[in-house]
């Protein structure tokens, strides 16, 4: 049963990932991303991290991707990108492929060397962070976040505030009076002028 679930969800993930990378239309890429995110959520459930699966769908697929689509639609940047040309030279693509292969191969080799076992410390019965099968994972997760990782939790809340403030500042329309000459615009206008 697990094998079937894994294969289907895994396929969804990979096809979605390839879709993101290979689709020239950004809207199609965003939709492929949704596919990947759902696949990941299913895999979370298969590993008994139910709460995380739910959060994944709600936050990632439900909020983040929607945000992406908002920007895409509002700014009208859904034009297709020409994937056949590479302005930075062929070296970029070649290097990218090599890096990708390396990033794939090295962890695989690491897994092989440890014969598929994790080398970290396995939590024992008395430990506070032991993942118990009988307790709901939400409860365990909540306990962990609000006790062991309380400080990190508080910091992330601050981070969110900062992010909101930053987004407001970055995205507001600049009044004509504060307008600072932007070389991009100047170049564009100079190119458009004659």
């Amino acid at each position, binding site marked *: 049963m*697990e*094998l*079937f679930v894994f294969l289907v969800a895994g396929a969804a*993930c*990979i096809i979605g*990932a*390839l879709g*993101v*990378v290979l689709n020239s239309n950004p809207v199609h*890429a965003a939709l492929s*991303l949704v596919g*990947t995110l759902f696949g*990941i959520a299913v*895999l979370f459930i298969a*590993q*008994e*991290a139910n*709460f*995380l699966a739910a959060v994944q769908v709600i936050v*990632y697929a439900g*909020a*983040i991707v929607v*945000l*992406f689509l908002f*920007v895409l639609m509002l*700014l*009208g*940047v859904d034009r297709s*990108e020409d994937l056949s040309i590479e302005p930075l030279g062929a070296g*970029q693509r070649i*290097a*990218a492929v090599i890096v*990708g*292969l390396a*990033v*794939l191969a090295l962890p*695989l080799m690491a*897994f092989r060397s440890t014969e*598929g076992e994790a080398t*970290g410390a396995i*939590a024992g019965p008395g430990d506070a*962070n*032991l*993942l118990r099968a009988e307790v709901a*994972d939400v409860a365990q*997760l909540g306990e*962990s*976040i609000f006790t062991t*990782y309380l400080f990190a939790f508080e910091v*992330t809340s601050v981070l*969110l505030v900062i*992010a*909101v403030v*930053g*987004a407001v500042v*970055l*995205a507001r*329309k600049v009044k004509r009076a504060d307008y600072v000459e932007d070389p*991009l*615009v100047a170049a564009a206008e100079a190119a458009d002028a004659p």
Partner: protein
Amino acid sequence: MIAVAEVTPVWYLVLGSILFSIGAVGLLVRRNPLVMFMCIELMLNAVTLTFVTFSRMLRDVDGQAVVVFVLVVAAAEVVVGLGIIVALLRKQPSATADDVNVLKG
């Protein structure tokens, strides 16, 4: 369906590696800033998958806690990143990542 092979946690790890490498390649190859962002999200997802797998392998709930934080940080990052992209694309709707090269040495 009868299981032909046992799904060991390593399979999840391998899947995570594949997703991560696809995301990395995508980031380096694509020019549209929003698609580049999506590739970053892809990489982050691969990482969360790996963390959950390790959490199960090590019977440790810390892995899942990390995933929560990754999610929060990813959200914050997307917010700010999209803000930047909005500011960038408002001036020049057809801008790509290559057009932001004013800081060259």
